[in-house]
């Protein structure tokens, strides 16, 4: 009998505290945001883990693209006949990617820097209109710009034609906005007083620009070069439309074409190479940038700042 009565007695206090504790959790204004935190952590796992899986599969030793088969091997990197290194088309794609990246940086950074200078020191209706187009090129879906450029190079600028040159020109049009935006915001934060002081002390316009303003802009120029390079590696819509045969397809386009069809994990290897290149450039760039901008406090997070601006 006593055993039959005992459970209700024992149960009542067992339930009450949990109930009270739960409501106390929600009533506590300083409670830890556990729900928000778990959503955030789940999101971060969801956004990063699949990529880790894809990288892992590039080091598989089996043939399957669906699962990783241990041990870690470089079979699809260099050893197998279908690996990226043994396939001359894939190997060329790596070099083509780098070539495009460097060429686009070499074009966009000087033109963008010059335009940013003109934009912030000499405001006119003309620069306003060009700036409008620069921003527009940035937000227009790449599909639209890609088709427009394809028609232009195949119908109008036939002396250039499709191929590497068209790809460089096309991607540069899309990427020119990075240096313009970054260097302009840097120029605004520098202000005009330095060049005015230099010219007051007798420097010519060119001297004040080269000796005073340009050295202050080096960090921003550097960041925009890194970003343009990293973004050009990933670019594939415009590049694909302007390509001429398999010889002018960079890694991104190769990955796109082979992503569904390829029977072996070489695709993952190419994607991993792209990722490593980007991370190498951005990471190395970030470290170099920290050194470059050491004197200027608060400038270390400009890469992040920029990413928030997009």
């Amino acid at each position: 009998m006593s055993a039959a009565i005992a459970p209700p007695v024992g149960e009542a206090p067992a339930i009450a505290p949990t109930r009270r504790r739960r409501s106390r959790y929600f009533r506590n204004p300083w409670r830890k945001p556990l729900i928000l935190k778990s959503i955030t952590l789940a999101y971060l796992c969801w956004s990063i883990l699949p990529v880790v899986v894809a990288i892992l599969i590039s080091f598989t030793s089996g043939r399957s693209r669906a699962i990783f088969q241990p041990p870690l091997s470089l079979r699809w990197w260099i050893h197998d006949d279908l690996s990226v290194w043994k396939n001359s088309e894939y190997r060329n794609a790596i070099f083509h990617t780098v070539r495009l990246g460097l060429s686009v940086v070499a074009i966009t950074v000087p033109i963008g820097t010059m335009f940013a200078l003109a934009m912030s020191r000499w405001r006119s209706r003309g620069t306003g209109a060009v700036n409008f187009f620069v921003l527009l090129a940035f937000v227009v879906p790449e599909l639209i710009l890609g088709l427009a450029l394809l028609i232009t190079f195949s119908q109008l600028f036939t002396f250039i034609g499709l191929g590497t040159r068209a790809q460089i020109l096309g991607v540069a049009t899309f990427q020119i906005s990075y240096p313009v935006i970054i260097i302009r915001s840097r120029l605004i934060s520098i202000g005009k007083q330095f060049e005015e002081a230099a010219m007051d002390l007798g420097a010519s316009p060119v001297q004040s620009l080269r000796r005073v303003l340009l050295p202050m802009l080096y960090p921003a120029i550097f960041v925009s070069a890194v970003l343009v390079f990293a973004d050009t590696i990933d670019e594939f819509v415009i590049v694909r439309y302007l390509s001429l045969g398999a010889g002018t397809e960079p890694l991104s386009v190769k990955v796109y074409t082979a992503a569904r069809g390829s029977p072996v994990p070489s695709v993952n290897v190419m994607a991993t190479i792209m990722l490593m290149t980007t991370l190498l450039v951005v990471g190395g760039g970030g470290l170099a940038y920290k050194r470059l901008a050491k004197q200027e406090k608060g400038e270390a997070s400009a890469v992040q700042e920029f990413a928030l601006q997009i």
Partner: protein
Amino acid sequence: MSERTTRAHRRRRKRQQRLRLKEEGVWYPRGFWPAFAAPATIWMALLFVTPFYAVFAVAMGTVDPIFRNPVPVWQPWYWDTSQIVEVFGKIFGTGGQPAIFAPAFIRTFENVFAASALCLILGYPVAYFVARHSGKRKNLFRLLLIAPFWISYMMRMLAWVNILQPDGYLNMILAWLPLDFLPIANGHYGWLEGHQATVVFGIVYGYIPYMILPLFAGLDRIPQSLLEASRDLGASAPRTFFRVTLPLSKPGILAGLVIVTLPMFGDYYTNNLLSRRPTTSMIGNLIDNNVGVPSRVSEAAVLVLFLAVILIVPMSYYLRTTSRQEASD
């Protein structure tokens, strides 16, 4: 009236400034700054404005009667709208044509609406947590939020192509879980065989980082003191959120939605990677399928014009807000 006076005022002030600068020795020779603006101006004229004109010229041009390749017409007074009328008919079923493009257009709106709503619903809590509650680890969290930007879209989609294979990890997990009553948990479900839900999932996965960053930036700017004031004056925590935080984060929400929807409308690659079936195609796929065939490039050009018309509102909103931001800098 008032605008005119301010303009005159501004002009006068500018002249005074110029005089002052000249006195101080700060002057630039004529054409100094225009020379700096010239390369970008020429570049954008040749490689941005001209291409868009070329799209018009092809869309309203003619087609070679023998080779069926597009012949652009460069003079606007010879432009011919018959191709536009034809594509219009294929979309809306007018002119006695079957509306063969209608499903793709409807699906595009469905996908973009669903995906951007999901991006907002999933992204807001994340951005809110990192902006308000991440404390000392804010920079680490911010870095992790930015990380997807450095991983190419291709790589991120490829990862899901791997995981969603019939013998891939997702099916392995589903078969392992006790979910036998679900038809999708049979262990060899074809996730990549033309499901609209997979495409929407892929689009959300691809673009959600672009949503979170503007949201985060907007939420991070809200001063803590406002929230404290609201609580001090007696508002409950949910009320503070709905009356203070949410209204103040509206610009961030709008910016995120615009940034996310613009590329979504032009997306065709997510579809091609995660479905590859015409049953899930979007406007982007209609355009992309036509690009490969020379005789149908003009149809692609017309479709691009339609797409541009759809996107005018979000694009002009984006351009207006960014230029206003620049003006306030």
